[in-house]
Every structure is written in C-alpha cells, then in structure tokens.
C-alpha cells in the first residue's frame, strides 16, 4: 500500500461562525470520519490542523500576510492515509466533513525520497 496526503482546503472567510455545540458536533464528524479510516487500518498519520494565519515569504524578502493572500481557499489541515491506488484514496476521502462545509480535499500520492 502507498501513502496519500489528503489536503483539506476551504475558504476561511466563508466559514460559518459556529456555536460551541456546533463546534463539538463538527469535531465529532471529523473523529467519526478519521476513526472510520483508522478502523480499516488505513490511517498512516492523522495529521494536524493548521492555524488560520501565517506568512508567505517571496523572493527578495517580500513577506505577505498569508496564507490566503492570492488564492481564495487556504489549507486548513492534512492527514495521511494508506491505499493501493489513487481511486481507493479518493474513496476514503469521500466522507470527509470538509466537503459538506463547502471545502475540498486534494489527494496526492506521496513520492518517497
């Protein structure tokens, strides 16, 4: 089996403000999804979420407040899953809660150095 990086992207500006209860329900949805992958023994690394602010360093020491200065969607987190093919990895991503919230998942095979 190969490792695939799942990159979660969404438009942070368009993210709905959530009540604590909604946030808890959201956490549960993520845990159910990732737990389901782990139950298939196909989780390599649950990954992490990313903070919503950051910097983008360009050539010539040009620093921009990022990460969403140039594109609308920014990366909010990542996980690494195991699958035989790109199609299988995509299948695993299908229930990712980010899709229901208007975001997307990019599936990329990890090419080991």
């Amino acid at each position, binding site marked *: 089996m190969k490792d695939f990086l799942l990159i979660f992207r969404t438009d942070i500006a368009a993210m709905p403000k959530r009540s604590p209860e909604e946030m808890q329900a959201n956490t549960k949805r993520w*845990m*159910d999804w*990732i*737990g*389901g992958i782990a*139950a*298939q*023994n196909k*989780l390599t690394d*649950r990954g992490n979420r990313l903070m919503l602010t950051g910097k983008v360093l360009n050539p010539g020491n040009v620093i921009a407040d990022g990460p969403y200065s140039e594109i609308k969607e920014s990366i909010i987190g990542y996980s690494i899953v195991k699958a035989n093919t790109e199609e299988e990895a995509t299948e695993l991503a299908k229930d990712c809660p980010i899709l229901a919230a208007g975001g997307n998942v990019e599936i990329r095979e990890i090419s080991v150095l």
Partner: protein
Amino acid sequence: MRTLQVTISSMEQTALIPHLFRTEYRKIVSVLCKLFGIDHIEIAEDIVSDTFLLASELWGLKGLPENPAAWLYTVAKNKTKDYLKRNTLFAQNISKEIKYTTTTSEEIEIDLSVKNINDSQLAMMFVVCHPCNAPEAQIGLALNLLCGFGVDEIASAFLTNKTVIYKRLQRAKEKLRIEKIKIEQPTTTEINDRLPAVLMTLYLLFNEGYYSASQDITLRKDLCLEAMRLTYMLIENEQLNKPAANALLSLMCFHSSRFDSRLNQQGEIVLYQDQDTARWNQELIEKGEYFLNQASEGDTLSKYHLEAGIAYWHTIKADTVNKWENILQLYNHLLLIEYSPIAALNRTYALAKARTKKEAIIEAEKINLTGNHLYHSLLGELYMSIDNTKAIAHFNNALTLTHSTADKTLINKKIQLCEQPIK
C-alpha cells in the same frame, strides 16, 4: 473504603492456602532471587517450592500455624541457610556478589522485612517484564515466578502442552542470564523507560485470563486477579504510581466487575447486552472509578486511559444513545493511537448503537476482516431483522471460522433467532 486487596480476596471463593501460596511464593522467591542473582533463580525456586511442599504436608496434618506467613519465612530462611552450608562454593560465589554481607556463608542475611520484600518484588517485576523476551515469554515468566503458577497451569491457560511451556520458560530464563539482567531496584530513568513494557505485560496477562478460550473458569479468574495484584503493587510504590498504571488498574477493575455475569450456569458466554446487571460487582466498579480519577492527573493519555474510559461507560446500565456515542468517540481515539481488529469491530458495534444499524453495516463492510469470526458475528448481528438471510450467511461464516465451543453455541442460538418467523 476497603482496599483493593480485600476486594480481590473476597472475590476468591478459594480457601486461604492457595491465595497465601501465590502471594507468599512471589515474596520469598523475589527476595531469594535478588539475593542469589539472575544466574541462580532456579535454586531460589527449588527452595521455595520445598518450603511450600513441607507446608502443605504439615498444615494438612496439624492444621494452620498461628501466623502462616511467618512460618513460611522461617522455614524458607532455614532451608536457604542449609543450602548455603551444603554448597559452600555457591555460598562463596554469591557472597562475593553481595557487597553488604560478610564473607562467611553463615552470616548471609536473608532479609524478609516488608521493605526488602517490596523492593525485591518490584525488582523482579522489571526483570520478568524485560523486553529481551517476547511478550508471551514474559507472561509465562510472570505467571511462573511472580504468581507461583506451575507449568501445568500455565499450559492450561495458554491452551498448549506442558513441554511447550517448559521450554518457553527455560529459554526465557536463559535469555535473562545471557543478557546478564540484574535483579535490582530500577532507577528513575529505567522506570520511565521500562514501565510501559511492564504495564503491557500486565495488560496481556489480564487479557489472557479475561479472553482466554480455556474452559477452566477458576484458573482464568485467577490470572485476572493476579494481574490486578501485580498492578496494584506498582501503584503502591510512590515512584511507579503513574497515571498509565492507574488507568490500567481501573480498566482491570471495570472488566472484572462483569466476570461473574459473563457466564451462565452452564458455563456458556453471556453477551454484554444479555447480562444480568444485578450481578455486576458494584464494589469493583467503584474501585475502577477511583483509579480512573487517579489516572487523570498529569497530561498523558495512554491507550489504557481510553480503554478504561470505554470500560467505564460499559458499567453504566442504562442503554442510551449518549452512552454509545461516548463509547464510539473513545474507540475513534483509541484507533488513532493503535489499530487492532477488535477495536475496529467494537467501534462499529458502538456506531450501530449510537446511530443506526444501516450506517454501521456500511462501515463494517469497509473493515473487511473476512477471515475473522468476530467480523462475521458482528455483521450477522447488524443484519438481524434487516436482512435475516444475510445475517444467517454471516453467522454460518463465523461458525466455520471459530474453534471455540462456547462461540459456536452462541452463534447457533443467533441463527435460531433469525430462523424464527416474525410473530
């Protein structure tokens, strides 16, 4: 509140002697092993076995002495001194190693004080659970050296023959000698490095008793209680009283609270949902809660914490969605720490209880553990009353995959239920 040891003793319907034998065997063997060193643990075992043989002969004739433990200590001391007198060469060798004793064998101090007993037992725990031996060898050694189990009993617990166990123990002891493992009080660094391995062995020892396919119920219960005693011994030591150890003990208490309700009078397995909750041991549940609270200090979250949490929710009698939702989330976390087929299957069962059977069937089929009888039992259970034909097909698959008679009886009952026309 009664101590855990009192609770454990009250769970044992067995007489005083077997219990005394187990705990005292461990104490005296540990002290002698520590005195003699790793090269001579068999001599220590022989001396203690002789002592207990004499005790069972004499006590059977004359009744129990006033203080049985003290009697055992005196006899063991005398037998050790006799042995040292008869084997002066051995005595000289060990006294060279023991710096705090004088040179003559007669003056070797056999220290059976409470402090030395405790120190020796802990030192032996760390030797027995040394990662140079494979886990199953560690469990065997623990049963043999720390719990006084004979080769027969260990073979019966592992469902194998005596020769296999005998060889396994010999090899494990040889390995300890080759690696020159010292029987000594572990340092703080060693405790931090090796406590996880010790906890793992105790966890496996408990599971061996709790989940073993062995028909010998008394023996299985004994294994669980011994694992609890040894874990309790760790917690009693200030340095070893760590959150993970408390979580492990909590888990053991919660599980064993259901020991009696898991089997019916015919010795058949009673599934969790069919158990008589009145037979759950409330005292052990309370102990489990106490140790779980103790375990919540600090910021470590071990798999024992999560498993204890799951076991805690199982002690709640009301069958609510909230209960199963909590169990589901704990299984999600557990699977992120460590995958195991059993956790994957149990998670799916919790999903069915917290959400719907249909949702759980989709997830179960993704797990795809087709060679596991529990996988088919779970799918059979989930398909019941949704699609009985599929349920029966899965139960039949489970039947062909299990070797345990208890499992087969249970599965056949389920098939009968599926075949009954709906009234």
